[in-house]
C-alpha cells in the first residue's frame, strides 16, 4: 500500500538485496528538502537492485526544527544507523552536520552545504549558535564543503540546493549517476525535472571548478 501511495517504485526489488551495506545520514533544517533527498537516494538504490530502508525524524520540521533521515542501503534490519557507522553524510546545514557527525564511521565522509542557519531562539538568547567559522573548523577533518546555495541561485531556484548537494555526493556512493537521474524522474514533478537534472550535474561538476 505504501508504495502505491507514495509513488515509490519497487521494480527492481530483490528479496534479500545484494550483499552490500551502505549507510547514509541526510540532515538539515525543516524546509531544506531532506525528506525528498533521502527518497531520491532510496529510489536510486532500489533501481540499482539493492534493498533499502528509510527512517526519519521530522516531527516538528515545519517549525524550523532539525530533520534527519537514515537511509540504509543493502543488507540491514534495523531502521536506524548506530553511532559511528554511517558511510556518508549529506548535510544541508553546518550546524546540523555538527549535530549528526557522530554517526559517521572512521572512514565516513561528509558533504556539507555551506549554510549555517540560525533561528529566532538564537536571537532571543535561548540557544546561541556558535560562529560558523568555528563550526567549519570542527567539521573540517572529514568534510567536503560546497556552496550549493550560490550554485542553486545561479540555476535560478534556491529549492534545488539539496539536489546540488546530492550531485556532489554521488561519487561517494556505490550507485551510478544514471540511477539517480531515473530516481529524480520518479520523485520530482515533470515540470521541475530538467531543473533538477541540471542541479544534479552542477553538483557533480562542482569539485572540478
Amino acid at each position, binding site marked *: *500500500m505504501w508504495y502505491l501511495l507514495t509513488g515509490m517504485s519497487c521494480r527492481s526489488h530483490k528479496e534479500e538485496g545484494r550483499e552490500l551495506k551502505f549507510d547514509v545520514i541526510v540532515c538539515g533544517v525543516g524546509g531544506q528538502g531532506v525528506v525528498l533527498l533521502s527518497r531520491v537516494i532510496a529510489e536510486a538504490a*532500489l533501481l540499482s537492485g539493492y534493498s533499502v530502508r528509510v527512517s526519519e525524524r521530522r516531527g516538528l520540521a515545519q517549525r*524550523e526544527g532539525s530533520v534527519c533521515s537514515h537511509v540504509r542501503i543493502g543488507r540491514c534490519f534495523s*531502521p*536506524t544507523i*548506530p553511532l559511528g557507522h554511517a558511510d556518508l553524510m549529506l548535510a544541508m546545514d553546518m550546524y546540523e552536520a555538527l549535530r549528526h557527525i557522530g554517526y559517521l564511521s572512521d572512514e565516513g565522509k561528509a558533504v556539507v552545504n555551506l549554510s549555517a542557519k540560525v*533561528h*529566532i531562539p538564537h*536571537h532571543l538568547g535561548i540557544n546561541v549558535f556558535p560562529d560558523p567559522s568555528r*563550526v567549519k573548523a570542527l567539521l573540517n577533518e572529514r568534510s567536503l564543503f560546497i556552496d550549493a546555495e550560490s550554485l542553486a541561485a545561479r540555476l535560478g531556484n534556491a529549492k534545488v540546493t539539496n539536489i546540488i548537494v546530492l550531485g556532489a555526493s554521488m561519487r561517494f556512493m556505490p550507485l551510478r549517476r544514471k540511477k539517480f537521474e531515473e530516481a529524480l524522474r520518479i520523485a520530482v514533478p515533470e515540470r521541475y525535472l530538467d531543473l533538477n537534472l541540471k542541479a544534479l550535474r552542477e553538483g557533480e561538476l562542482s569539485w572540478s571548478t
Partner: protein
Amino acid sequence: MEAGVDVVSAYPGTPSTEIGEAIASIAEKLGIYFDWAANEKVATEIAVAASWSGLRSLTMMKHVGVNVAADTLFTLTYSGVRGGMVVVAADDPQAHSSQNEQDSRHYALAAEMPMLEPSTPQEAKDFVKRAFDLSEEFRLPFLIRSTTRLSHQRGMVLLGEVLPNRKKGRFVEDEPYRYIQVGRIAIRHHKELNDKIERIRREVSEGEDVNMLEGEGSSVGVVASGVCYAHAVEAIRKLGIKVKVMKMGMSYPFPEEKFSEFVRDLDTLIVVEEPDSFVELHARAVAKEVNPSLRIVGKKSGHFPSVGEYSLGLVIKGMATALGLNYKVPDTEIMDKVSSRAPPRNPTLCPGCPHRSTGYALKRVLGGKDAVILGDIGCYALLFEKPFSLAKVSHAMGCSIGFANGFSISTDQPVVALIGDSTFFHAGVPALLDAVHHNRRMVVIILDNRITAMTGHQPHPGVSYTATGTPAKAIDIEKFVRGMGVEDVYVVDPYDHEKMEAVLRECLNKEGLSVIIARRECALLTVRRVRRSKGRIVSYRVDPEKCRHCRVCITMFGCPALKDTGEKVEIDPSICFGCGACASVCPFEAILPTEGGLNWLRDGLGV
C-alpha cells in the same frame, strides 16, 4: 485495502496521522468510507458500529488517543465484533511529539484485546490483514501496536491483491443481549471473553507464524518485539554471536507454553523491548516456574534504559555488556562533546501564526501579573517558550479548561485557559459546560485557526468539509458557546493587537466566565490558498532609517522572519508571509510592506 476494509474513522495524532492521510487520498477511488472524527472515542464508536453491521472497520490513534477511546474499548471486548475490526495504536517512545511515552501493550492486557506487533514495513501490512481475519474468526477487536520508528519508516513492501468492499451492511443481533452489558449479562460475556483469549493463545499465539523461534544450540536467548526485533537481529549479526531468538509478534495473549520451552534450558535471556517492561514481566513469571536460575537481562538488570527509545547502537551495547563481549563502540563522549556545539533547535511558531499575536497581546495585558495560564495540546503549546513564557501547564487534550475550573476554586489568581479549536471540540466541551454551570471565574481563549493545524491540517467539526473533501456542516463556535450559556463571548482577529488587548483587559477584570474566540486561519493554509490562486505574498521590510535596534519585535514578538544583524533588525523576505502583525509591534513604525499590496488584516483574507 487488501483486507477489504469498508469504514475507517480516526482522530489525527503523530505518529498515526499518515495512515489517515493515505486512506483519505484513495478512499473515494476504492469506495472506502473515511472521516476524521471529533475524537478517538467517537472514531472508535464509528468503527464498532460498522463492524456490528457486518463491515470491516479500522481506527487508528496515537498512544494517548487510546486513553480517550479506552472507555469504549474495555466493554467492546465483552460485546465482541461481527465484521473484522482493527485498532492501530501508534506509540511514541522518546515522546518525540507527545506528552508522554505510555506503552499501549498494557491496554491489550487490561482490556483483554489481542494484539499484534509488526517489526517491519512488510509486517505492518501483513499483520493488519491477518488481524482482520483473526478479528472476524474470534469476533474480537484486534490491536496493532506500532512505534515511531516503525510508523515513520519507509521500506520495501510486497503487495497483494486489493479486496473489494461492501459499502453497506446490516445491523443484526446475533443473539439476545449480545451488545448489552450490565450485571449478570456482562459477567457471562466476561467469561466468554476469557475463553476466547485462551483459544487465541492456544491457536495463534502458541502457533508458528506470529511468535517465531530462530537459532538453536545456545544457552543464550533473545526475545524481542516490534522494531526492537530489527535492532536485535542486526545487533546479533554485528556481534557475531550464536543465540536462540524468539520473535514476539503477539505478546498478548502471551504464548506461555512456547515461551516456557524457549527459556527452559537457557542460562541467560535478553529481553529487548520499548519503552516499558511488558515481555520482561511475563518472562520473570514464566521463568520462576520453569527455570528459576535463569539470568534475565533487560531493564531491571540495568542493561537497557527504562525510559526513552531504543536504537541499534544501544541494543548492541546492552547485549555486549551483558555477555561480557569486547565490542568497539565509538567514543560517544568525544562525539557528544563535538555535537553539543550545535545547540538544539527548539520548535517555534511559524511566521504569520495567529497564535503568536494572541500570545503577544496576552503577555502585554498580563504584564507581571501572577496569573495561572493553562496551555493545551496544539501548536499554541509553544507559547510556553520565550519570548512569551506564557503557558505554565500543558498536559492532555482539553485539560486547560478542566484545570481552570479547579484553579478558579483553589486560588484567587486570574485564571486563563488557552485551547485550540480542534482540541476544544475533542475534549474541551464538557469542561466548559462545567465552567458555565458553576459560573467559574476564568477567561477561556479559544484559538480558532479553523483547522487541526499541528498534525498537518485535518478538518474538524468547525470546518465546512470532511476528510475526503465532501461538504460538511461547520459548527459555529460562537453560536455553540452562546448556546451553552456563556454570556460574555467575544470574537477577535488576533492580528488586531489593539482590540485583542482591550478585550483581554475587560475579561480579566470580570468576576465570571468569559470566552474569547481568537479567530484567524492558520497562516500556512492562507498562504497556500493565496499561492494556488496565483496571488502574491507581499513581504514586509524594516526601514533602516527608522529602526533604532530596540529589539522589541524580537524580544516581545519573535517571528522567525526577524533577523538581528547586530545593528538593525531585518526581515528575511524568504520567510516572511506578509501578515504585517509585527508592524503594530514596532514602537517606531519602522516595519512596512515592501509595496502597497496585500494586507491580511485589512483585507481579511485569512478569515
